[in-house]
């Protein structure tokens, strides 16, 4: 094995698995699952091995599109190649490790579900696409896999395609992502038009950036367009609406794609182009605002949701907002990558725990029908508490280290947004403890809660495996191994005490409010209805897009058609001469007229 070939094996093994499952998987459940898990495990082992190797001197690269024209002085070469550097190796490790655990967990979760092979083929396709994003060495290759991730997400969200809600959700996810990709692709065109290159290596080196120096406005616009890709894929406002709806997919999918890895692709993209962003400070300001507002607003919405998975979905949006804010504020991309790293573990864990609860509750997802599950599902409860504490930033849990670091940077560079993100930390503790309290404590609120059962071992073992990193992944010895982060200077002294205080307030208030609640004691329609953003979009799609398109369609038939086709054709109809032949349907007549036309034409040409 060498570092030249290893990335390619990591990349293409899942695609091969997906193809084989597509062809033969329907005949055998163990084969489908085995192939998918096997391919993920191979990728996982190789990724860890690769991580421990020094960065390779050279990589393999294949031409995908190569157009060269010496006469026109135009060249375009788009290779398929890999980047093997610290960033991609780190991401490989995270993606493949979590994928292996979630694939394994899926055996238990999907045991009785339909479309088993379809599910595992989709997961393998997803893994392939995600690894392609991670390894891409140029913008077009990343865009290719970016779209493929959208496709696999579409397939997996739409797994229960006979449910109308799932069918709508997968369509919405794909289209909203395409809206983001619209900007992303334009951004790629802008960068290419200015620099003539698409390679990350060329663009992020000083030479590439220097080319922009002449026109900083252009660079800012290009960066913001590329950031649209992040807004779509990482569910930032205003394109966040698809992520909560994507919870219609099976829970392991929510865990792997819509919490731990795929949605992090947008943040990874920002990390990839970090040197370019640094040269565009105005773009960074916009990015910071989008991240900060998303982070706060999504946390507000999370406090009033009642579906266990949707609470976690809004929490994911909020945490992604932190990462985006971190990209804009910190001096190095590693700060946000650090949070991406810890978040991947604990959010994946939380979703898998939620899946365990849902299976135990016979597919009930409303937290107000649960209650007192700590007695029925003690292992799930214990592990979910670890995840919850990590999420809410409890000291000595992983999230505490990574999130506080982002907040510190944000407070220094963007004080207003920084303190907003401090407030968000309190909200995070509040909604997390609300979730845990309502689900696991109090009294059972229904028959399903009374008869809930603990999940099988094949689901609990991956949970346990994730619990450890959720706890320790933020500790300095691990941080030093994976990252090179530093604290900002001149952090306000009050910051850490305030964060601790807000954490305590969030935990205690949620515990007291929800300990014995039968139904939600607080009702804030604005938050429960997700700031009415979804309603706004529904209205826009129905009234502006739908009616506008209908008007155009009417115009096409009655105006364009009338003036350009109907009236001229009516004039010819009026002669009534040719009409007869259509009514008779006489083929010989047509042939005769065709022949006549040819003769007339030749005649015209010769004797004109």
């Amino acid at each position, binding site marked *: 094995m060498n570092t030249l070939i290893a990335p390619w094996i990591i990349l293409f093994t899942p695609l091969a698995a997906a193809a084989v499952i597509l062809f033969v998987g329907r005949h055998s459940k163990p084969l489908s699952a085995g192939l998918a898990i096997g391919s993920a495990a191979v990728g996982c082992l190789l990724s860890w091995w690769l991580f421990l190797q020094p960065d390779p001197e050279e990589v393999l690269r294949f031409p995908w599109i190569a157009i060269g024209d010496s006469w026109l002085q135009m060249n*375009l070469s788009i290779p398929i190649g890999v980047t093997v550097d610290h960033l991609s190796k780190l991401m490989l490790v995270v993606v493949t490790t979590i994928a292996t655990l979630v694939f394994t967990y899926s055996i238990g979760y999907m045991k009785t579900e339909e479309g088993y092979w379809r599910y595992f083929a989709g997961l393998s396709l997803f893994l392939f696409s995600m690894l392609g994003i991670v390894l891409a060495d140029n913008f077009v290759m990343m865009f*290719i896999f970016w779209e493929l991730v959208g496709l696999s997400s579409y397939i997996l969200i739409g797994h229960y395609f006979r449910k*109308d809600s799932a069918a709508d959700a997968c369509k919405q996810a794909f289209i909203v992502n395409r809206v983001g990709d619209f900007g992303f692709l*334009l951004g790629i065109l802008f960068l290419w038009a200015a620099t003539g290159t698409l390679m990350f290596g060329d663009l992020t080196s000083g030479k590439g950036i220097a080319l922009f120096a002449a026109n900083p406005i252009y660079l800012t616009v290009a960066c913001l367009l590329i950031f649209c890709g992040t807004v779509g894929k990482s569910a930032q406002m205003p394109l966040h609406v698809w992520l909560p709806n994507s919870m219609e997919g099976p829970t392991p999918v929510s865990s792997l794609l819509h919490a731990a890895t795929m949605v992090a692709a947008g943040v990874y993209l920002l990390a990839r182009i970090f040197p370019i962003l640094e040269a565009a400070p105005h773009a960074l300001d916009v990015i910071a605002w989008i991240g900060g507002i998303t982070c706060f607003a999504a946390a507000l919405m999370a406090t009033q949701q009642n579906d266990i998975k949707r609470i976690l979905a809004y929490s994911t949006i909020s945490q992604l907002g932190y990462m985006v804010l971190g990209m804009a504020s910190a001096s190095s991309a590693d700060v946000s990558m650090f949070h991406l790293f810890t978040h991947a573990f604990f959010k994946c864990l939380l979703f898998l725990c939620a899946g365990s609860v849902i299976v135990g509750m016979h597919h009930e997802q409303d937290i107000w029908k649960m209650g007192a599950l700590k007695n029925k599902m003690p292992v799930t409860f214990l592990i979910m508490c670890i995840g919850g504490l990590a999420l809410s930033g409890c000291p000595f849990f992983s999230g505490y280290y990574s999130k506080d670091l982002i907040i510190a940077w944000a407070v220094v560079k963007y004080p207003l947004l920084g303190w907003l993100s401090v407030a968000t930390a309190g909200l995070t503790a509040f909604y997390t403890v609300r979730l845990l309290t309502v689900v696991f404590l109090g009294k059972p609120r229904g028959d399903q809660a009374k008869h809930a059962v603990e999940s099988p071992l094949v689901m609990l073992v991956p949970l346990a495996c994730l619990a450890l990193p959720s706890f320790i992944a933020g500790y300095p010895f691990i941080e030093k191994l994976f990252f090179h982060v530093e604290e900002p200077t001149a952090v306000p002294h009050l910051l850490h005490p305030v964060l601790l205080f807000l954490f305590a307030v969030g935990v205690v208030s949620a515990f007291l409010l929800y300990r014995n609640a039968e139904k939600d004691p607080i009702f804030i329609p604005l938050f429960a209805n997700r700031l009415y953003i979804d309603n706004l979009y529904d209205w826009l799609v129905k009234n502006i897009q739908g009616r506008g398109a209908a008007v155009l*369609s009417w115009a*096409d038939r009655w105006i364009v058609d009338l003036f350009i*086709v109907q009236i001229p*054709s009516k004039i010819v109809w009026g002669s009534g001469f040719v009409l007869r032949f*259509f009514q008779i349907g006489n083929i010989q007549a047509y042939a005769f007229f065709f022949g006549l036309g040819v003769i007339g034409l030749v005649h015209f040409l*010769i004797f004109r």
Partner: protein
Amino acid sequence: MTQVSPLLFLILVPLVASAFIFVGSSARRTALIASLVNLVFVLALFAVFQTGDASYQFVSSTPVIPSLGIALTLGADGLSLIMLLLTALVTVAAVAVARTPDKNAGWFYASLLFISAGGLGAFASIDLFFFYMFHELALIPTFLLIGIWGSGDRQAAAWKATIYLALGSFVLLLGLIGLYLIQPEGSRTFDLRSVISMAGLGVLGDGTWVYLLLLLGFGILVSLFPFHTWAPQAYASAPPPAAMLHAGVLKKFGLYGLIRIASPILPEAVTQFANLLLILLVGNLLYVGYVTISQRKLDWMLGYSSVMHMGYIFLGFAALNVFSITGASLLLFAHGLSIAALFALSGELRERTGTLDLAEFGGLAKPMPFFGLLFGFASFAAIGLPGFVGFPGELLVFFGAFAGGEPLMDSVNGVEIFALNNFQIATVCAVWGVVISAIYMLRAYRRIFFGPVSDRWKGLPEISGVPRVAIVTLLVVMLVTGFFPNLLIRLLASTSLWL
């Protein structure tokens, strides 16, 4: 020249097969065999084609009217070869999915074969007269197929298409005659190669009006906005094989002609009228795109979507550089295959359900999972998903068009400005078209295949047999060329387009 071009056999095979059908040979089997023979034949031509050679290959010339410079001159370069492959593939698929009609089966299959022969002849012709004539040869059976074997309001549809396409052809003919007349007297010819070299020498007269005639004529044939309303209705009424052959192959003739004739011979006129064309093609992309969204019937939606997609190819042509024209050429191929697959599938769907009204469907992926899979593949191919050949095509068009026109000005009087030229604005619209096409395709897919399945559709039979193989073949070709677009790009790089 004594040598006979192998391309002549390619054209003759369907014609001879039609003759066999008329003397009593089994219509469907003969047509299928002939189309398969042609496919193998085209693949053999690919094998012997010299990629490094920029001139036409397999050339033969038979003078027909020497005094006018008309000769049956056949030849192929990379672009023609790609179009020949497209024609051969779509013909096989169209014949394969065709349902033999009760009456006049012989005429039905012969019409399909004539369309194929016309398409092959047009793409293999170097002589502009025959280029035109072969296309006419293909149009007549198209009208017959719609008017006689069509569905719905077939006579009105056939009539509208006839008037429209006849008008387009007539304007095109005037344009070609104009191209003939601007050549210096004494050396006038219809041989494309000679005209191109004359253009290179600068001996042609003013070609502005010729270009406008060509643009209008070809534009009507390709359903350029606002001359597009015949297309959806004709495709909705046409029997599926006819819609496949026309939307997949024949409609490409107009764009192929513009790329072949206008870009090497009249580049100044193309540049001069670029803004006009940009406005019209944005009409195709956005206006027709939104009209597509509001369609309630699958066949109308597919018809409009094919009109919309022509906008990308026009954009590639208008930008007139090596990237954009390479991309446009890839899209000719990609769109031909994907729309043929979609019309084939919608025909199969109508055959099973008797309707194409989107509101009546739901949950069909349950009774017909493989059908749903194929339709999904074809839909994603049509909306330019990476992995299918449409994606590199669209991508290259975007790159080429974004680099088209005058370069950006960095500053005016020392003040930095940010501006886009018209090509770049059109590119922005075209990239938004990618979102529009996702909306209408996925909406249709969701309505047909997802959601609860009603009792009415529970017993629908799965797609099987010859049609299944044919559609899978189309999809596999799109995947292979999508994964390895350089297979086609290498051929295009050595065409005579860039001379």
